[in-house]
């Protein structure tokens, strides 16, 4: 009896292994900004996360869970609130950005705080692009909260889960803390009067960095005005 069960189990296991080998790229997605817990692990800001560092995109479990790992058998570290997950400072309006590795047909994207659903986006079975962004209002909540996001796949029973820890201020868009000032940009090659530059080209001229906004030749940076072809990008080194 035992053997009779074992054989089919082994066959299924072999089949699963061969399916995995045939198409290993079957993973999916997670929130990169503000960083979800799996993104915190994958970028090394939280240590000792286990296997999630290899595949932050794979937090997949049956639909309907309210746990950060979706209630699956893997990645339980994501549910561990004692981990001191860094909270990202945000205002009342937060844009959640998803890294996507497989563009699954999607029914909905849901966002929860506590037990309440604060936003839902219905894609009606459409496939997302290579990235996805949602703007979500925090609805007047302030202080430290954990947002649970669920990406519900349209044609399977599965969803992808991501928890994002936030420190919510009462302000409008941005965070409470201003972002760190960007480092001084590096200079491009010196501008040449005879060269042809396409839009986006970077040159240096008079110790400053300039970017061409469109095709240009023979127009000296700094002489084309605020709305001209060369945009001043500041001092550079």
């Amino acid at each position: 009896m035992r053997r009779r069960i074992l054989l089919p189990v082994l066959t299924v296991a072999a089949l699963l292994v061969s399916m995995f080998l045939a198409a290993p790229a079957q993973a999916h997605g997670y929130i990169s900004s503000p960083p979800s817990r799996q993104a915190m692990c994958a970028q090394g800001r939280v240590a000792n996360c286990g296997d999630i560092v290899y595949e932050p995109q794979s937090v997949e479990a049956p639909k309907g869970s309210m746990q950060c790992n979706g209630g699956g058998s893997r990645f339980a570290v994501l549910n561990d609130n004692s981990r001191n997950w860094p909270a990202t400072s945000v205002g009342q309006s937060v844009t959640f950005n998803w890294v996507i590795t497989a563009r699954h047909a999607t029914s909905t994207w849901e966002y929860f705080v506590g037990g309440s659903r604060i936003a839902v986006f219905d894609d009606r079975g459409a496939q997302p692009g290579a990235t996805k962004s949602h703007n979500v209002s925090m609805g007047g909540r302030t202080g430290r909260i954990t947002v649970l996001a669920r990406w519900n796949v349209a044609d399977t029973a599965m969803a992808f889960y991501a928890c994002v820890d936030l420190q919510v201020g009462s302000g409008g868009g941005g965070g409470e803390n201003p972002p760190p000032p960007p480092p001084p940009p590096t200079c491009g090659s010196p501008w040449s009067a005879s060269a042809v530059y396409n839009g986006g080209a970077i040159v240096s001229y008079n110790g400053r960095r300039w970017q061409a906004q469109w095709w240009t030749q023979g127009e000296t940076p700094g002489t084309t005005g605020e709305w001209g072809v060369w945009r001043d990008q500041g001092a550079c080194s």
Partner: protein
Amino acid sequence: MRRLAVALAAAVVLLGGCGKGESAASYNDTDVMFLQMMLAHHEPAGKLLELGERQASDPAVKAVATELAAGQAAETATIRSRLTSWGQPLVSTAHAGAHEAHGGLPLLDDAELLRLAGLTGREFDSTFLTMVIGHQHGAVELARMEAAAGTDPETRDLATRTDETVRAQIQRLLRMVA
């Protein structure tokens, strides 16, 4: 019973020895598939990185595009010459339908690249980086498949290096978009 076990063990050792002597190939199907899929993986990324080099506004983002494109070009050359030396095709017909599992859309199709090309400034930069991250996760998955089941030592080395370098890249890119 014990005698039977010993006889079986001896037979296995003998057969194993024979097998090794006769088989010239150090590689298996996983090695070939890994190399073919890495080539297929790099191809659309070439266009993405080119767009990043041309259109990113933050010099750090541009630098990422340049660095990844250079690494990828070198790796593509290595992979092509290895597959050729093995007499294996560069493109596998067996996996032509691999994308069908995801509804027929590869991650980076022309429509997505066009959408990206229509963006500017910080929006371009962050969308570009996010696409690169998503794409690079695919390389880690392939590398881990090879590390688990490949047999060719050099190809396994390539997989180990890919796993490490790409995960370090993803770390850095995630910090840039955080």
